[in-house]
Structure formats: structure tokens, C-alpha cells
């Protein structure tokens, strides 16, 4: 790689190095220079609040994840509306296009709604369906 193709990326590399240097530097320095005073209270898991009970690796219901994922999915899909809305007036001005831009977005929303319908009918949004945890398809 004889040419200087990568030269423009040099600042990024430097920034990376500096960031990494500062981060590790701070930890290393505090480890070396810092004072350590241990006390009973300090050695507890939390200095304030409840004493922890049980295992921290608690199993969450799969529904939490499902809802979280669905949220992200619909969120991202909805975001696609924004650029469309921004250029909508320009779309109308394209000769011969007519309401083409409008219908395109309606199709898109239709597809999203099909997904929504599917999720709904499958009972994912219903928090209390017992079969979901078991799986409907056995």
C-alpha cells in the first residue's frame, strides 16, 4: 500500500490513540497513586440501600424481550416516515408522478400494519397469555 490513500484517516487514528491513552492512563494512575482505606462498610456490596438477596442473574420473562424488540422494530419503521415527509412536497412536483409518492408510503404503512396485525393476533401484546411462554405451535 504504497500510496497515501489512508493519510486522511490519520487524525482519526490519533484521536483513537489519545482517547485510549487517556482512559487507560486515568485508571492506571489512580491505581498507582490513589490511597486505599478499607473498612467493614466499604467492603459491603453496596454502601447504601438494601443488602442484596438472591442471584443477580435473574431470569426475565421472554415477554420483556419481545416487547422491547417490537418497540425497536416499529420505532425504526416509523422513522422512515420522516425523510418522506420532508420531501413530500417535492414528490408532488415531479411531472407525471401525481400521487405516486403518497401511495408508495401507503403501501409501506400497509406492510407495517400487516406486521402489527400479525403480532397482535399472535398475542404478543397480551401480557397474560399463558400459551406464549409455552409456545403456540407444538
Amino acid at each position, binding site marked *: *500500500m*504504497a*500510496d497515501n*490513500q489512508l493519510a486522511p484517516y490519520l487524525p482519526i487514528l490519533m484521536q483513537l490513540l489519545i482517547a485510549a491513552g487517556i482512559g487507560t492512563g486515568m485508571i492506571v494512575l489512580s491505581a498507582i497513586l490513589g490511597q486505599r482505606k478499607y473498612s467493614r462498610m466499604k467492603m459491603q456490596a453496596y454502601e447504601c440501600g438494601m443488602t442484596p438477596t438472591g442471584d443477580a442473574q435473574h431470569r426475565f420473562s421472554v415477554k420483556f424481550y419481545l416487547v422491547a424488540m417490537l418497540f425497536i422494530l416499529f420505532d425504526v419503521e416509523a422513522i422512515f416516515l420522516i425523510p418522506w415527509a420532508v420531501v413530500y412536497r417535492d414528490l408532488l412536483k415531479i411531472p407525471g408522478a401525481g400521487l*405516486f409518492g403518497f401511495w408508495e408510503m401507503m403501501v409501506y404503512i400497509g*406492510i407495517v400494519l*400487516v*406486521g402489527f*396485525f*400479525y403480532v397482535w*393476533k*399472535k398475542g404478543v401484546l397480551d401480557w397474560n397469555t399463558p*400459551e406464549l411462554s409455552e*409456545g*403456540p*405451535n*407444538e
Partner: protein
Amino acid sequence: MMTNELQYLSILPELILTIFGMLIMVLDPLMADRASRKPMGWLAFVGTLAALGATFYQGTHPVAGTAFFGMVRTDAFSIFFHVVVIVIAALAILSSLDYLETQGIRSGEYYGLILLGTVGMGLLSSAMELVMLFIALEISSISTYILAGYRRRVAASAESSIKYFLLGSFATAFFLYGVALIYGATGSTNITAISQALHNNHISSLTYLALVLMFVGMGFKVAVTPFHVWTPDVYEGAPAPVVALMSTGPKAAAFALMLRVLFGSFGELSQWWLPLIWISAALSMTIGNVGALLQNNVKRMLAYSSIAHAGYLLVAFAAGQDMGIAAAIFYTATYAAMNVGAFAVVSHFASRGERYVSIDDYAGLGRRSPVLAITLTIFMLSLIGIPLTGGFFAKFYVFSAALKSNLVWLTIIGLVNSAIAAYYYLRLIVVMYMKEGDDSVTLVPVPVATAAALLIAAGLTIYLGVMPGGVLGYALLGAQDLMR
């Protein structure tokens, strides 16, 4: 610029598949929980037929050309691969209908996912934009990830799905990175624009890195050495009809992508990437065949065999020229026919819970179910490459193209490999015909849908072996379209 209506014609098969896929997603939740999902399967089958019709329409009417601002191109190449992947999907659906019943899986989405995955596979052969290609790749991959885990109660299936998903994402990341870099190097993500940029301008070192990264991603998808390691595990765990689909459909599509990228965009650098293909082909053939020698599980054996076949296909890549590309295209079609067929037999035979997947379970099949045994024999003979089956001609073209391009050693390695390969395919035939059967292996009569799938696959395998002229001629047209 075409009128809007004509533009839609160029993605007509995809549109039809999408509509049917969504229809299934809507209808499935409305069905009673305990109802059989077979109607959904038939609906999906009708969808593939309609899409096939649409593809033929494309082939016979003047819709050829680019559409959507050069995003997709309809030509002989794309039409050929559309037919291949849609037929694969149709056969996979047919062999799934009774399989799902046997396994007690009641799910219509299964069929929806096959259809939507086929959309991605189809687009992989017609898209002309790297970004579009990436999306198509993801569509086809993600549906396959899910399908691989469909035997939810079986740990092996879940494992298969997870492995495929994690490693697949890892590999597509490579591909995406390559796309980004090539955009940086040439300022475009359009296949033809990249090719022109490479032709006219100075080729920067970023280009090479981009090519290499994309090669990693594509190599993973087609499962060639050294990116093949996932194949045996994933194929072993996934439901058999899904393996029928994913060992052929996404693979064929990924080969289309590879042809598109390597010859369409990076044709300029062919001398540079040729050794890569050469080494990868030789390794894949050898590792695939030697690995398959030792397997006792039919699915696993066929997995290794599919690695070997990907290697043969790469030989055609290395041969290059019209003839090599045509040979590669023809090989994908043939391989699809015989492998889908073989897995259709495996799916039926496996029985509830896929109990019977060991080679020894096939003992005595020759007498207990002559029809099943004969069809499986046809597929095995074709995989070996015996004349009058498609497998023979596919290999014949590949190797004669290779020799034409002076790839003497690669040809010899390939031929030695296909001699070794005879051993393990033959083993299955020997077991079927020449071993006493064990009556504890229950055998269900072949249902109509499976029988149809077997008949079509066997018919195609023989057809490609006896009358390869027409298909090969179209493959050659596709090759010329690709190089244009």
C-alpha cells in the same frame, strides 16, 4: 427510463412472493390453534407457481433491462436464477407439507418465511446495487436463520439456528464492510459503475481490501473452505426440508451474487482474485469429500458433500469466460435439483423427531420401499456424476471449461475428488440395496405432496442429464448477459 408499470414488471416475481407471504402472515393467526397448517402450505405453493409464471412472463416479454434507477436488472441471468430459486422453494414447500405434520409443528409462518426468503434470493440475482444486494442477502439469510430453528423442542435445531445466525451475521458484517470500502474507493455502489471506475481510474489499495472482505462474506454464504465450518452442524440440526432449501436456494443465490460481484464489478482484477478462487476450490473439494467419507449421519454427509460441490462450482469460476460462467450457472441448477431431491427423501424417511437419519437406518430400503430407494439412488448417482444424470453433465461442463482455461491441476484435483466422492454416495446405495433391513425402522407410505416433489426433482435431474441442451443454452445466454 421505463414507465412505472414496466418497472414493476421487473420485480414481479418478488412482488407476488411478498404478497403471498404477507397473506399467509395475516391468515395464519386467524386459524384455530390446533388446526392443520397444510392449507397455508398449499397457498404458499400456489404463490411459488404464480411467481414462476411471472418469471416466465419476464422471459418471454420485453421487460429486460434495468429499472428503479439502475437498482435491478432483468436479463437471462436473473431469470435463470429466479426460476432456480423459485422451483427450489416450491419443492421445499411440497416436501414440508407432511413433514411438519409428522413433526407436530403447526405453523403457517414457516411457509411465509420460505416465500419471503425466496424474495431475497430472487433479488440477489437481479439487484445491481451493492446496498440492495446486501439487503437481499439479509432477507434470504434471516428467514433461513429462523427456519433452521423450527424444531423448537430439539436442542440441535436451536443450536443450528443460533450458530447459523451468529456466524452468518459475522460474515455479512465482512461483506458490508467491503461494500463500504468499495464505496470509498470508487465512489459508487453500483455494479457497473464500479466496474467502469476500476477500468478507467487508478485502482487503489482500498479496492483490494474491499474485494477480499466481500469475498469472505460471500465465501461464508456459499460455504467454501475456509469459511465452511458451520455447514455440518447447521445442516445436521435444522429440519430436513429446511436443509433442502438452504443447501440449495440461498446457496444458488449467493453464487449469483458472487458471479455478479466478481465478474460484474471486479472482472478487471480477475487475474488477481483467480488464485484465491483456485485455492478455495481445491480445498473445498478435498475437505468436503474427505469429510463426507467418515460420516454416519446422512444429513451431515450431505453437508460435507455440499461443501465439495461448492468447490466444483468454484472451479467453474476459476475457468471464467462465457463457458466457465455458463458451467457455473448450469451447475447451480443441477445441484439444486439433485440435492433438494435427496433431502426430500431424507425429510420423509426421518420420521417423527427425525429419528432415522443414520446411514444404517437406510438398510433394506431397496426392498421395503422401492420407489423411495430408486429416487434416492437417482440423486446419489447424479451427485456422483454418472452419465444420463444432470450431475454428470454439470461436472463435465465445469471440468471441460476448466481445462479450456488451462487449469490442468485444478481439473485433476477435481476429478480425483469426484472419484473419491463415489465412495460415500455409493455407501448409501449399498446399504439400501445390499443390507438386510431392520424392521424397527418404521416406514410410512410416501404422501402425495412428497411424491410430487420427488418426482419433479428426479425428473429434472434426469432431464438435465439427457437433454441438457436447452438449459445450457439459456445458461450461456445468462453468462453473456452477465459479462455485458
